[in-house]
């Protein structure tokens, strides 16, 4: 049987604050984004289902946590991302994209406005930003290069980041940190816990209700213990994180997004939805992105359900009726909740309509798929104003 794991370039791998904790719980550690990270504990399928039905604890401390502050921060940041930064209220969170000059995506990110009442830089209001682990050093370099000198940027590398995701996450977390149940999707706040304060937002990357918790590295283990002591909670590895986010139509940078894809190609039009930002057209690549928004991009990211049982994975080709390569699969696998193979792929916009049947080619074998509406599994976010 051939090797399961692909050979990795040998590099110095960093350890997470919870490294020993993962190993003690049977986590199988693999290299990811420059860290040794748990890919699974008891098994990807079981962990995926557990998260959809109960609550899973994910260690995402490899992600970059940044704090930006200074005079004119909103305006400065708006030169690099297409979001309406100015409209984001204190403790409001937003998804956005770091864009290159050609409108290509350098990274995707979440940012939140903090007032002076924060633990990181007390008295100083600013923007807290979470970026992808594999991109964080490039992102920091990019931000430092293009933000004016008045803006200071700190990399909060002493902070761990935990995500608690699933329909029972709110019950479990509210027992440990009372008050979090008052948060709604994409809002956060500071909460007292165990003599310290945690930054907690109601957000995540699984499509489920849930929370992301920023905690100092030296307190992370105690918090992870307190959370997994709740009957609803089990630790979940990267493997299930990948299948969960794929079912939820959440693209993964470096796979479904890269410097050659624009927000419109990536079907992330909501990230360029601000009327003011579109009228000002002063974010990187605005001319191209706005033209694509009006008349469509050449290619677009779509979701496909594949016939049969065999997974079609990243790198498989999308073929037209004549057998020509017209696109590529960027993520794919057997979806544990859908119970079918699913993929994300870039295809010509003319072939991106729901219901279009497409041919896929992988290792010399032909598969058939159909473009379907994403997400593959409905989101279950707890939004403001929704009945609880």
């Amino acid at each position, binding site marked *: *049987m*051939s*090797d*399961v*794991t*692909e050979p990795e370039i040998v590099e110095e791998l960093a350890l997470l604050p919870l490294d020993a904790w993962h190993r003690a719980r049977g986590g199988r550690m693999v290299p990811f984004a420059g860290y040794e990270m748990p*890919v*699974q504990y008891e*098994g*990807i*399928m*079981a962990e995926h289902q557990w998260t959809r039905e109960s609550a899973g604890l994910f260690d995402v401390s490899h992600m970059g946590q940044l704090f930006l502050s200074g005079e004119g921060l909103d305006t400065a940041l708006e030169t690099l991302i297409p979001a309406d930064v100015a409209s984001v209220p204190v403790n409001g969170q937003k998804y956005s994209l770091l864009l290159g000059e050609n409108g290509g995506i350098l990274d995707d990110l979440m940012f939140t406005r903090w007032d002076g009442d924060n633990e990181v830089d007390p008295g100083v209001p600013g923007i807290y930003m979470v970026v992808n682990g594999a991109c964080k050093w490039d992102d920091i370099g990019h931000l430092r290069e293009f933000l004016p000198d008045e803006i200071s940027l700190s990399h909060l590398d002493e902070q761990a980041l935990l995500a608690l995701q699933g329909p029972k996450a709110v019950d479990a977390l509210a027992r440990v940190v009372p008050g979090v149940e008052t948060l709604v999707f994409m809002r956060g706040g500071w909460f007292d816990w165990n003599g310290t304060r945690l930054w907690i937002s109601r957000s995540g990357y699984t499509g489920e209700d849930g929370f992301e918790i920023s905690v100092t590295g030296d307190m992370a283990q105690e918090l992870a213990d307190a959370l997994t002591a709740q009957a609803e909670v089990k630790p979940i590895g990267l*493997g299930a994180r990948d*299948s969960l986010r794929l079912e939820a139509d959440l693209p993964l940078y470096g796979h479904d997004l890269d410097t050659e894809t624009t927000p419109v190609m990536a079907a992330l039009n909501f990230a360029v939805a601000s009327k003011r930002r579109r009228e000002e057209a002063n974010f990187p690549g605005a001319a191209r992105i706005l033209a694509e928004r009006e008349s469509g991009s050449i290619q677009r990211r779509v979701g496909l359900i594949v016939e049969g*049982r*065999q*997974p079609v*994975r990243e790198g498989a080709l999308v073929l037209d009726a004549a057998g020509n390569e017209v696109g590529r699969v960027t993520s794919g*696998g*057997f979806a*544990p909740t859908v119970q079918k193979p699913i993929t994300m792929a870039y295809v010509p916009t003319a072939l991106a309509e729901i219901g279009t049947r497409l041919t896929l080619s992988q*290792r010399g074998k032909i598969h058939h798929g159909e473009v379907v509406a994403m997400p593959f599994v409905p989101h279950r976010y707890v939004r403001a104003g929704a009945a609880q």
Partner: protein
Amino acid sequence: MSRYFTEDHEWIELDGDIATVGITDYAQSQLGDIVFVEVPEEGKQVAKGDDAAVVESVKAASDVYAPVSGTVIEGNAALDGEPALVNEDPEGEGWFFKMTLTDKGELNGLMDEAAYADFVSKL
């Protein structure tokens, strides 16, 4: 009947002239949840080391090699509807295919159960 093992984690067991081939318990535990198996068709000729079957877990696709040369006489049809059999009973109900051998002498180059256990313990 005796069972032989390869360094690529296949097992093969000869009963008269017919050998049964599968992957080991160690292999299934490394793969994790198996979601798809493609077994060879009856009549397929394989040389020792050829790709003979495909096994896919949630994580990755892997090839299963022919442990020895011969002719496939049957693929395990049960794996089509229930690939998880490979996780549940890899060295029993989760077998991959049966074959006749070109040269039974090729089995001598493989490991016996004790040698394979020793091999796995050092991985």
